[in-house]
Structure formats: C-alpha cells, structure tokens
C-alpha cells in the first residue's frame, strides 16, 4: 500500500469559503474544466511529503481544488491517497466523467456519492460519444444517480458557462440502503460518512487515523457498486452504428512491437531533436552563453566588485566561480529553465495524447526483468533529458520498490541531455569502435544493476494493469498551461537547492578542501583508472553538475581509450547537485546518501575495470584487439549475471501490489 499518511494540503481558505473539489478519471477533461472555472490565477502547492503538485484557484468566494485523475478513491498509489484526502475534505465535489467511458467513470462517481458529499456530475465529451454512435439519456442518469448531471464539451466550452453557478445545485445522491445502514452505524466513530465508507472498504490509513480495524468488505462493496454502474449504463446508454477511427488504428500500431518500436524510435528521435539539439544546443547557447555568461555575469561581478573585493571570501561566495549570484542564476535561468520547459512541454504532449500508457505496454516485457513494469519507462526516458525532473515523475510508480530501483538507475546510468551533448561530441572525435564500447558498457551496467536490485531488494513490484485511454490530439493551450504551471513549480523548488549546492562548493573552495579532495582522489584516478592526475578535477566538478565533469575532460589531452574510460566513469558518477537534493527529498537522507555513495563505487569500479582489461588485452597500446575483448568480457559478465539471477536465485512472483 502506498505511503500517504498526511492529512491535507495547506490552502488559505477565505472566511465562509466552500471547498469545491474537482474529481474524475484520468483523461476525463478535468484540467480544461478547472482552467475555465478558475481563470488565470492558479496556485500550485506541493502535497505534504510528496512532490505531487495540487492546483487550486478561486471561483467567486470559494476555492476550487484540482485532484489527480484516479479510477477510485482507495490507496492503490500516491495519487489515489491524495485524491482521497482532498475529496474527503470537500464541501462540494464536481465529478467530471467521460461520456464515452461511462462504465469506467461512473464507478468513481458512485463511490463519491457513497461518501455522502454533495456531488454535481459533468458529463463531458458528449460530442465524442455521439461520434462513436453512443447516445446518453441525461435525465435518466440524473434520476438514477440522484445528483444533477450537466452535459458539456469542455474543449469547445459548451455547457461550461452554467457550471460557474451550477455547483450550488450539487446534491447528495442515492446510496444503497444496506450500505447506508452500515455507514450510519460506523459514522459516530469517525469524522464523516466518507471516512466511514473508506474504513468499511478496508482503507488502512483512514482506519488507523481513528484507531479502528480496517473493514473487510471492500470486494463485496465494489462488486455491488460495479453491478449498479453496469445497470445504470445499461439503461442510459444506447449504441448506434460505429466505425473504427484513425485514433483506434494508430493506437493499435503503437502497442504492436512490429509497428510500435519504429513509432517509439521516431518519437524519441523527435524528442531528442527538440530537447537535446534545439533546446540544449541552440536555446541554451543563447540563454546561458550569450545572455547570462556573456552579459549578466560580468555585470554582476563589477557591481559586487564596487561594494566588496571580488576575491574576498564573501565576494567569492556571491560572485565567484560557484557564486550564488553568478553560477546559481546562470544555471537556473540559463540552463535549467529552458530544459525544464522543454521537458514539461514534451511530457504534457505525451500525457495529453494518450501515448504514454501505450509505450508502457510496449516495453513492459523488457522492464519486468529489472523489477519494474512498463510504467517505469516514463521516468527513464525523461532521464535522458533531465535526471532531476525524471526523479520527480517516479511518483507515478506503484510501489516504493519500483521507485527505489528507478531512481537508482536514473542517478547511475542515465546521462542527462547536458552531459549527453558533451559526451557525444567527445566520442565522435575518437571513432565508432570507442563509441560502441561506451554504449555497451553503460547498457551492461544498466541491465546488471537493474537485475541485481530486483533480486536483492525485498518486497514485490507491481505488475502492469493499466487503462489505455483513447488517443487524441493534444490541445495546445492546455499543454502550454500545464507546461507553465509545472515548470514554475519545479524552478521554485530547485532554485534554493541549487543555491545551497553553490554555497557548499564555494565553501569547499575557500577553505581549500576542494584542492585537498583533488589530491585525495589522485591515486584512484592515476593508479586504478590509468588517467592523468588532472582528471581528478573533472570528477570533483562532476559532483556539482554532470556535464561539468565531461566539459572538464574536453580540455585535456587524453588517449582515445583514456577518453572512453573517463567518459564511462563520469557517466556512472554521482548525479548532479540539483538531482541528488531532489532524490534526498523524494527518498530520504539515508537512501539518498546510499545512492550517492553507490554511484561512486560503481563508477570507479566499472571505469577501472575497462581501463585494466583494455590494458591487459591490448598490451597497453593495441586498442584494435583490446576493444572487442573488453566488449566480449562485459557481454559475458552481463549474461552470467542474468543466468545466475534467473536460475540460481529463486524467482520472485509479483503480486501486483506491495
């Protein structure tokens, strides 16, 4: 069961304001309704203890709160827990349902009605339902549910105007008589009927809050609710003719391997071109190089220089190499901001189109060996852009175990776009055989570490059980708005962390610890990795930012093999300061520290292994012989690990939930 023991977000409620909560299944059109009701001024606040953002805004004197899209309010993952708590605290729930998927969406509707909170149902996407030959008797639906139903086409703003006042009409709906009796009986021992319902449904968190034993009637209640929903759907929906749409055909192609893999490659290529080439190259070239390093930093230095000496301790902290006014501002605004906006733009596009769950289905098989299910592909893909952003998206995974494995793999073996750019440039200079060696070693490490974590970590991972929403064309203004809100929330959070990182590094530099660390590392770099002594500096820099380390290497005269060894080591080396601080926030101090130290050990072990092996096989200079032999050795190690994990260690059957 997901960890979610906090009770609510802190929202400033005006006096007499009501909490109007929007709830609905994923892809029901909640965000469009939310945007319409609240207008431009929206606040985003982090749910306590998580990085999940909750948006809220005003409607008249009331507060409208958005919730994550869920199929029901239970505790199957973090998002459900959060939706559950917000819905339970509501004065009125506006439940948005998708007219095409009534069978699925009405389950949540019935569950919310059972909480006894007044509900207004927004029957969205009626145009889409008509297109698919479905007609829905809204009046009958109103009667059967016992709550008002308003048909809308949110994307075309049809029916939305009346919503601004219609929330007043929200009513308590019809509840099954037998269930109502049980709820009334239990209500005195908890705070509300909603809590009584969840205790009855075996919700351990809510039960624990009131010192009660969770009930064991979930399945019975669910089955009855399912029957009621099927019955309602049978009465209100009539189906005419329908034809397969382009969306359905494309959706099928996306999950069949023979067409799905090429489509995925095209999508990833487009993402790489947009984020890795256009944003990380062209845009960052302008924002970071030209504007911030070229214009802003000299201006700040001369300004600070007028007040205090620039080479004094305070001067260094403020405007030195790692200064709070120089490096922090340059990274956050010049580098991080364009990248983060690019990512969230792409992520929002993927999210809104319905492609993500199909990618997850396509790659599920590959990831199960690493103790993950298909959903983990989302943070892993995003990691190639920015590991910091990707770490946050691990919240969509179903168990702590999967989050742990994914975050470790992200911190270890996925180079972010900034680093990837520098690495690609350096590898291009040494030739394709070295490039192949680099790629093979990193992939081998990813597979070995993933497989071993799966075997060694206790517990069970969840299995793929996901809804594939219909494909649809993302709406640009919705995508842009989402991008804006998420990017702002991210930068808001990352900036202080970055400033803290800069402060630590400046302190190390001023106190001379930085140089001492470089000397301390030297035996490791020279003796074990067989690299020149100066490379130690690159690794120290790599602690701050991954691409820093790589950039530090470009200026050194290295043999091709030394280049590959140093690049492998720097790729596997610790995640950047912003990432590790986010990882600590997500995973806690102890696990964060373990991940950080783990990447040190693995990076130097693997880097050294490549250096030593190529030295033995190639006799120190013959790389044409050395490279294939090192590659064969790594392939062999990977296969041995896979075989041991498969046959020697006991296979661990998954359970679907931890």
């Amino acid at each position, binding site marked *: 069961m997901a960890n979610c023991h906090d009770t609510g977000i802190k929202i400033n409620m005006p006096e007499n304001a009501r909490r109007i909560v929007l709830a609905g299944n994923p892809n029901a059109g909640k965000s469009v309704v939310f945007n319409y009701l609240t207008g431009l001024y929206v606040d985003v606040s982090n749910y306590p203890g998580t990085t999940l953002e909750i948006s809220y805004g005003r409607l008249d004197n009331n507060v409208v709160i958005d919730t994550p899209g869920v*199929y029901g309010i239970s505790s199957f993952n973090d998002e459900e827990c959060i939706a559950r708590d917000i819905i339970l605290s509501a004065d009125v729930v506006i439940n948005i349902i998708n007219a*095409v*998927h009534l*069978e699925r969406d009405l389950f949540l509707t019935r569950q919310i009605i059972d909480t006894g909170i007044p509900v207004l149902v927004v029957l969205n996407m009626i145009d889409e339902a008509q297109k698919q030959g479905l007609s829905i008797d809204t009046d009958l639906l109103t009667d059967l549910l016992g709550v008002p139903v308003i048909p809308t086409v949110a994307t075309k703003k049809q029916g939305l105007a009346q919503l601004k006042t219609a929330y007043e009409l929200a009513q308590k709906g019809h509840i099954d008589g037998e269930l109502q009796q049980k709820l009334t009986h239990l209500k005195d021992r908890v705070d509300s009927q909603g809590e009584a319902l969840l205790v009855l449904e075996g919700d351990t968190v809510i039960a624990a809050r009131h010192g009660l034993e969770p009930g064991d009637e979930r399945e019975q209640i669910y089955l009855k609710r399912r029957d009621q929903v099927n019955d309602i759907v049978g009465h209100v929906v009539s189906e005419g003719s329908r034809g397969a749409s382009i969306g359905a055909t494309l959706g099928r192609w996306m999950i069949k391997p023979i067409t799905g893999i090429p489509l995925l490659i095209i999508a990833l290529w487009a993402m790489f071109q947009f984020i890795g080439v256009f944003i990380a190259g062209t845009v960052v070239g302008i924002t970071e190089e030209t504007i911030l390093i070229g214009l802003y930093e000299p201006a700040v230095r001369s300004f600070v220089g007028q007040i205090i000496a620039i080479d004094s301790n305070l001067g260094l902290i403020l405007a030195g190499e790692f200064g709070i006014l120089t490096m922090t501002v340059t990274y956050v605004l010049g580098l991080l901001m364009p990248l983060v906006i690019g990512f969230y733009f792409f992520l929002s596009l993927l999210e809104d189109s319905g492609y993500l769950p199909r990618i997850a289905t396509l790659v599920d098989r590959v990831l199960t060996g690493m103790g993950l299910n*298909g959903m983990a592909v989302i943070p892993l893909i995003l990691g190639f852009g920015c590991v910091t952003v990707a770490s946050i998206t691990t919240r969509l995974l179903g168990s702590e175990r999967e989050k742990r494995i994914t975050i470790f793999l992200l911190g270890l073996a996925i180079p972010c776009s900034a680093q990837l750019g520098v690495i690609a440039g350096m590898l291009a200079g040494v030739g394709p055989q070295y490039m192949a060696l680099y790629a093979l070693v990193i992939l081998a490490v990813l597979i070995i570490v993933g497989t071993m974590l799966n075997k060694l970590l206790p517990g069970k991972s969840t299995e*793929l059980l996901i809804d*594939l929403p219909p494909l649809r064309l993302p709406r640009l203004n919705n995508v842009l708005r989402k991008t804006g809100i998420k990017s702002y929330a991210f930068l808001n959070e990352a900036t202080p962390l970055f400033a803290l990182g800069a402060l630590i590094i400046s302190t190390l530099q001023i106190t001379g610890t930085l140089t001492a660390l470089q000397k301390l590392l030297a035996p490791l770099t020279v003796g074990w990795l067989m690299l020149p002594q100066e490379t130690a500096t690159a690794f120290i820099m790599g602690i701050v930012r991954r691409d820093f380390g790589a950039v530090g290497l470009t200026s050194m005269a290295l043999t091709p093999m030394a280049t590959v060894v140093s690049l492998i080591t720097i790729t596997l080396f610790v995640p950047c300061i912003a990432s590790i601080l986010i990882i600590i926030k997500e995973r806690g101090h102890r696990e964060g520290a373990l991940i950080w130290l783990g990447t040190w050990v693995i990076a130097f072990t693997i880097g050294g292994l490549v250096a030593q092996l190529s030295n033995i096989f190639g006799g120190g200079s013959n790389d044409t012989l050395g490279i294939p032999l090192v590659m064969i050795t790594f392939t062999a190690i990977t296969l041995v690990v896979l075989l041991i994990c498969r046959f020697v260690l006991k296979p661990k059957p*998954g*359970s679907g*939930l931890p």
Partner: protein
Amino acid sequence: MTLAGAKRGQHIKIIHIPDENIRSRAIRFGIGEGSVVFCEEVLPAGPIVLRKNKQEIAIGRELANRITITLN
C-alpha cells in the same frame, strides 16, 4: 486456462483473479471475475490487451499467467 494463453480476437470470460488488490482494481475497470471481455492484442512474451466496450486494459504477462479464464 490462463489469460496468458488467450489469442487475439477471442472472446473470453474472466474466471478467477488471485490477488485481492488486483481483483478490486479489476472490478473498478469493469473486468472483474465473471465479466466477458475481448482479447484485443497479445504482445509476444509481453502484456495482453483486453477490451470491454470502449475500454482497453493492458495486463502484464506475469499477472496474466495467474488469471484463470475460459473461452466464451
């Protein structure tokens, strides 16, 4: 037979789902025990995609191995 043995294009009936949590989630999706669904796609060694009315659900192979079905 188990769901993992289903073929594309078959109509099947879900007989038994082993885990209580999974069972509850399946009920929410409308594919609980006793429901009749259409096998939309079977990925080689990968997930099975089921369809019920307009709704499509992807189920991982390991889980499909533990779900009992009959052909309908």
